[in-house]
């Protein structure tokens, strides 16, 4: 998703990560893989863009990282959604919903013109 402003990417990334972790705890690489797969590659997070975001979210108390053994037998840091993160999910969903509705309305007006 090159070309999209970092702030937009960060904001959408927060929502994507919270929504994913609301289903199940995941480690960083799995988060980036799922986001890319579920958005058909439109939204992509690599090592450089994902971890600062995860650490920031962890500092805010939205997610909590815990070292656990993965199926592969390796220790991975799994991220869990915290109650604070759960609370954050609904308003973020609403905010982004409104944002896309607004964009859609503008695009509609532009098309009609």
């Amino acid at each position, binding site marked *: 998703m090159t070309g999209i402003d970092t702030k937009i990417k960060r904001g959408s990334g927060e929502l994507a990560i919270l929504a994913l972790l609301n289903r199940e705890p995941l*480690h*960083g*690489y799995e988060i*980036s893989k799922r986001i890319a797969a579920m958005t058909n590659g439109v939204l992509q997070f*690599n*090592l*450089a863009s*994902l*971890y*600062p*975001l995860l*650490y*920031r979210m962890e*500092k*805010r108390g939205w997610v909590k*990282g815990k070292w656990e053994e993965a199926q592969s037998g*390796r*220790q*991975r*840091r799994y991220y869990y959604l915290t109650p604070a993160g759960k609370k954050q999910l609904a308003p973020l969903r609403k905010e982004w919903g409104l944002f896309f509705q607004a964009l859609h309305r503008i695009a509609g007006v532009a098309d009609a013109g």
Partner: protein
Amino acid sequence: MPDDQGLIRERLGKLGLGPRREDEIVRELGEHLEDHASALEARGVAKDTALREALDSVPNWPELRNEIVSAETEEATLNYRTKALWLPVLCALTMSNGLLALMQIFGAPAHFYSLSVGNSVHALCGFIIPWLISQPVVGAVAAYWSRRAGGSVRHQLLAALAPSIALLGLFVLILPWAMIVEKPSAPLIRLAAFLILTVTWVLLPAIPLLLGAAPFLRKPQAQS
């Protein structure tokens, strides 16, 4: 994978976040790098090329370093200081001044003593003994709160002594005003009064505050 972690450590450099957290971050990024390289290998990319491509997925390592440090410290500083220092300080100030106000409202007896400094300077100083007796509790609560929030011994001390420090700050502000701006006719008397006020309302309460805090003053335990 130690090699991956070494490569990451080399590129990131020192983060200044403490060895424990730095090791954790390097380890986590190393695991990610290893997964990325493995995925490329699974698609037929040679091992060395896969690792290089995975490393190249980070276009700017110094920028990543700054992003991580910013994410780790900006809010941490605010939260940590608020939790370990400012909230216990606020608690100590509220408790100490609240107790003083209550004692004055309910007429706790004040003891006054006349002090003489030299031949010409006499001053009256007053103590509210029950308030002084209550101060160890204030010091204890503030130090305990700060320690529970992960505050250093310095934070614990500052929190416990906050009522005395606040009054000292007030006197330090008032003294130059009283001496320079008001130009008193007897500056020595004014100065002596301030010194006595400092002793009775700053140094004297600091002793019970410290006594109360003493059992709780110790380094916070490392977080698990």
